[in-house]
């Protein structure tokens, strides 16, 4: 195979695939990207067997062919080249010669025969606005569990209905739910898919890169979810198993709702939580007369207290929350005001945005015993 390609184009597509490639893998070929010279373009694909990305960049193809090259080494090198045309040539020995200006390099590759085929995307079921996907992912991804033990929780549930898209994630301590109403053509009934956390992160990147108005083609087969973002395709294996019944967890009523200024609350929680127990990160929220009091005293270093003027209603109560959980929510809340809703010391609290009409965002957090 023999091509010329703009180094900046190559860097961009290689960069998007980089997140997929496993750093530590027992299958050597998975550290590589597949490159295939096709008519007028270069196909680039990466996979870790769970997740795959396929992208194209324009190229002048003199001779078709394909190979796989070490993903990290290739990107690290090409990134350092000046933005110019580079010539890439692969001989029978799978090694790639790269020439760009006065630079010449040979990178050892591996035959594509061992590189897993990405599943073929079936006909698209519907189109989802990239903006809604990005928003849904960014507001739920931090609530996905990290532990492998809760298998079905290590991803988010995506629910497509004809009237909108919803995404839910939970780690057993908190739950983030985003629903964006819209007409989804082609969807009848309900389509559910569990998206692994890694795929969420990559999809977020791909969808965000396509610009505000891009529509993402969505398809599914028995085991996979497919997202086509422009010329780029993301395929992920569906997580199997039962996602918890999240609707049961969403509070039916608001309890005591306290509106707060987001930045003010975030700054206070950050300060107070410096003195929370390192492991539990517990901060006490107290509904007092005309103010919300925050306090932490778990660490040996000392203790901290702060109060924020607020309409706290009639109920007086103290409840503990993991400061990090609260900050995770505030970090993605883009409205000036947020609402904290408290029921009692043992029941979940809920956090919502004030003044956001395009979508519904509910963040449910279980308290801590303090």
């Amino acid at each position, binding site marked *: 195979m023999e091509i010329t390609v703009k180094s900046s184009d190559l860097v961009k597509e290689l960069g998007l695939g980089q997140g997929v490639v496993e750093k530590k893998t027992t299958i050597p070929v998975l550290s590589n990207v597949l490159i295939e010279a096709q008519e007028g373009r270069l196909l680039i694909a990466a996979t870790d067997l769970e997740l795959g990305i396929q992208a194209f960049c324009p190229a002048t193809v003199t001779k078709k062919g394909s190979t796989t090259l070490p993903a990290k080494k290739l990107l690290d090198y090409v990134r350092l080249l000046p933005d110019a045309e580079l010539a890439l040539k692969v001989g029978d020995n799978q090694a790639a010669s790269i020439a760009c200006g006065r630079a010449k390099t040979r990178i050892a590759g591996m035959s594509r025969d061992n590189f897993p085929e990405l599943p073929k995307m079936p006909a698209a079921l519907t189109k989802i606005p990239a903006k809604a996907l990005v928003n849904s992912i960014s507001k739920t991804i931090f609530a996905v569990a990290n*532990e492998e*033990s*809760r298998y079905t929780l290590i991803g988010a549930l995506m629910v497509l209905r004809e009237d909108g898209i919803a995404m839910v994630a*939970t780690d*057993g*301590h*908190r*739950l983030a739910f985003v629903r964006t109403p819209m007409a989804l053509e082609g969807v009848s009934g309900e389509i559910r898919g569990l998206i692994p956390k890694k795929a969420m992160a990559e999809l977020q990147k791909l969808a965000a890169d396509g610009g505000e108005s891009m529509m993402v083609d969505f398809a599914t087969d028995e085991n996979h979810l497919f997202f086509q973002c422009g010329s780029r395709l993301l395929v992920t294996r569906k997580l199997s198993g039962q996602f*918890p019944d999240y609707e*049961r*967890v969403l509070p039916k009523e608001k309890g005591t709702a306290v509106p707060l200024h987001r930045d003010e609350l975030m700054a206070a929680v950050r300060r107070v939580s410096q003195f929370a*127990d390192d492991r*539990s990160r*517990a901060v006490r929220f107290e509904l007092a007369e005309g103010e919300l009091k925050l306090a932490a005293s*778990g660490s040996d270093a000392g203790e901290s207290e702060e109060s924020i003027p607020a309409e706290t209603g009639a109920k007086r109560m103290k409840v*503990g929350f*993991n400061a990090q959980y609260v900050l995770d929510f505030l970090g993605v809340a883009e409205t000036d005001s947020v609402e904290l809703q408290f029921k009692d010391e*043992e*029941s*979940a609290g809920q956090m919502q945005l004030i003044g956001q009409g395009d979508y519904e965002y509910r963040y*449910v*957090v*279980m*308290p*801590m*015993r*303090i």
Partner: protein
Amino acid sequence: MDAFFVSVEELEDPSLKGKPVVVGGQAHERGVVSAASYAARRYGVHSAMPLREAYRLCPTAIFLDGHPHRYREYSKKVHAILRDFSPAVEQVSIDEAFLDLTGAERLLGPPLAAAHALHERVRRETGLPCSIGAGSSRLVAKIGSGLAKPNGVLWIQPGLEASFLAPLDIKKIPGVGKVMQQKLRDCGVHRIGQLAGLDEGFLAQRWGKLGRALAGKARGEDAGGWFDGEIGGRDLPKSISHETTFSIDTNDRALIDATLAKLVQLVARRLREHGLWTRTVQLKLRYDDFSTYTRAHTLEEATQLDNVLLQTVRRLFLENWKVPRKVRLLGVQAGSLSNPEGQLGLLDSEQRRKWGSALAAADALRDRFGETAVGLAAAMRHGRRERVHENPAGLPGKEPSSRKQQ
């Protein structure tokens, strides 16, 4: 307390007074002696001896199953009295406790007067005999109380600890078991005074930390093991456990299930009583050939609920039981204990809340009407009688086996 279980039995049935009485079970049963009256001790019967051997030594003894709930009740009464004398009370078993009277001299008078006042009050309010040792360390107090028995008070004046201990046999030192005794005797050490005469460096070189602790103990200091802690110190306990031996080895699933439920119930009850949550559940399984297995599981979330523990223990049992081998002993242990702080779970919160309030109500009933007032249905399938030597629940202020493993 002096022959505590027996004394309680005598209170309830005065005709037992002065007779050889053995509490722990019937003469032909498996199990061990929990307490023997002084009359029975004259025949050589002592606690922890197999019941059958006790019968062989003293066939005329009256064997009683015992009444754990009564002992607990009296233990609670005594504990309440102790709390009146000092806030720093460390109850080390159902019938033994340490009080720190430091700084209480103006309130209670000199040590001997305080000890007499306490002794008198226990006798007056409970009718039970006890013995008190007073001294500058727990070690001296404990040894003193042993020598004061029965029904006596002994004060070891500060400064006289070493000379008080010197003539005593080394077996009187708490924490010196049969093995250590033999080692010491092999070195020609029989009396505590001889031990105190040895160079500490020699002891440390020979037995390391243990040797250093021995040297300290010989001088009458609190040293080594749990003697290093504060009286009433709030160290978190390491574990809470219950185990039981079947009177006949069994492979009856229903009986085993019921027994596990019963054990879990006891463990969970004590967890709640101490305000502790557990994350590690361990099953102990002993077959009829005495081969013993322990298997543990770590929960995702700390709990103190019967149902969560039972589910785990049952699974551990089924995974590890080699059907149809007969089981001799089952034990359940809750480890990785933690204080209340902790993240509550979201997905099972409703169920947990229901169980939590049901169990709180059950605990209240048990406090009022005794441990058998209410329980898991699964545990009722067999009438496991609570045996007195099985670490009964509900000891006031008794910290679970916190320092045992040190």
